[in-house]
């Protein structure tokens, strides 16, 4: 059944009927499993990967990676501060990192000004946050195994083997 999760990771639009056919299981069983997996939080959600640059070429919306250094709090470790950060709607992803900083915050679909004011106004002022470094993403090449640029197709292909 884990195979079904891997397939949905590749394409969340597979129907339970398709998943059943591909894995040789009964459709009812697949549906049951998915309902349970959603209830258990094994599947957190289903989203689309959108190339917004193609939707609006003149858009000034950007994505940023903000490195955050924090001092862990007694009894709570990093989780408490992380929670205070991810509650902001602006925050798209948040990861605890090994290395020279502690939290990686991703924000997308905002203007540079919005992001600056979020960093200075909200993020940096959270108790326990000791420093931030903001990097703007200039171009997206690949996300979730999907490539943004349309790949060239080979021409002059043999048609019959």
């Amino acid at each position, binding site marked *: 059944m884990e195979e079904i999760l891997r*397939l949905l990771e590749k*394409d969340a639009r*597979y129907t339970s009927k*398709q998943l059943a*056919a*591909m*894995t*040789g299981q009964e459709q009812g069983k697949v549906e049951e499993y998915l309902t349970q997996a959603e209830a258990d939080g094994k599947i957190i959600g289903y989203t689309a990967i959108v190339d917004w640059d193609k939707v609006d070429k003149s858009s000034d919306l950007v994505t940023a990676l903000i490195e955050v250094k924090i001092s862990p709090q007694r009894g709570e470790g990093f989780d408490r501060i992380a929670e205070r950060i991810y509650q902001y709607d602006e925050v798209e992803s948040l990861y605890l990192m090994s290395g020279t900083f502690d939290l990686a915050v991703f924000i997308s679909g905002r203007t540079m000004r919005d992001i600056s004011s979020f960093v200075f106004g909200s993020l940096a002022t959270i108790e326990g946050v000791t420093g931030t470094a903001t990097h703007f993403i200039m171009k997206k090449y690949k996300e979730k195994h999907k490539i943004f640029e349309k790949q060239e197709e*080979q021409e002059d*292909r*043999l*048609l*019959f*083997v």
Partner: protein
Amino acid sequence: MMDYSSLLSEAAVSLKPSGIRKFFDILAEKKDAISLGIGEPDFITPWHIRDAGIYSLEKGFTKYSSNAGMTELRQEVSKYLNRRFELKYDPLNQMLITVGGSEAIDLAIRATVNPGDEVIIPVPSFVCYGPITTMAHGVPVYVETKAENEFRLTPEELKAVITPKTKLLVLPFPNNPTGAIMEREHLEALAEVLRGTNILVLSDEIYAELSYGRKHVSMANIPDMYERTILVNGFSKCYAMTGWRMGYVCAHADIVAQMYKIHQYCLMCAPTVSQYAAIEALRNGDADIAMMRGEYDRRRKYLLEGLRELGLSCFEPRGAFYAFPSIQSTGLSSEEFCERFLMEKSVAVIPGTAFGKGGEGFVRICYASSIERITEALSRMREFLKTI
């Protein structure tokens, strides 16, 4: 004016051109066309393999290699055959690196067939064995495999066509176009017929890695068959490397010595850049094969389920990446079915008759295509079947 009809090779003139060219002319003009016709992986060669080829060019390795193929590559092929199929071939005198599996087939037939020798070819099967036999002035003897035997060659069928002139048995399994495989017991049964004869076996195992649910057994694994088997394999199907043209042939050193000369005079050597890529494939490509096999397996089950829902009977293909459903219930011939399906619904599948006798009443559908395309093709087939 020259009269070419009197100048050309009679054997070459006697070859029939592929009957389905017209299909592809139609296909090329259709914008919304879906082709499940071409027998080629839809994957691009894994990056690390492509990178190895690019790196060899950067280093300037652009010269001929030794005729038999780079020693390093032959050693890797030898290790691979041992690792995957428990086969032992000496990389120095039992193996040639060829320009695709096709050259390997050509070498095997030309190195063994004398004028008038008979070559037994089970059909439906890949299209090249007969024409190459004809060019070697041999005589193709076709044996029709049957749907009720899951398109395997049976010992009875084999026995019935053996004559004193039989030189070679072609064994193309896993099979294009039927998807049939021969398991150990089935190979054992053929071996029983072959023991004590002087018949050689050309075992075309290009789809060996694409066996589903069970491990491929080579004819060379069967007792007493190793010394009479000429094993053909390659990189096209399992590593998605069709355009690199890389194959190999393994056999007894005495046979290889003859094939070597033909290869040397015709091709010199396989492309060097492709050989470097192939070394990388063999060293670090096992996971790529497993990934692609897994994908094909899912598509196989998906397509099979879809065909059965449409009411077309289809024996379960266990190898390669083709399904071979019967379309007899439609009352159309294979060619009519394919031509109308392409004209009316813009989906290309191949008539079974393109692969020889016994293919009438069947069509070949290649499932090395995305689930989206297979889904769309099935839904167009549903509409098409309603109109018949």
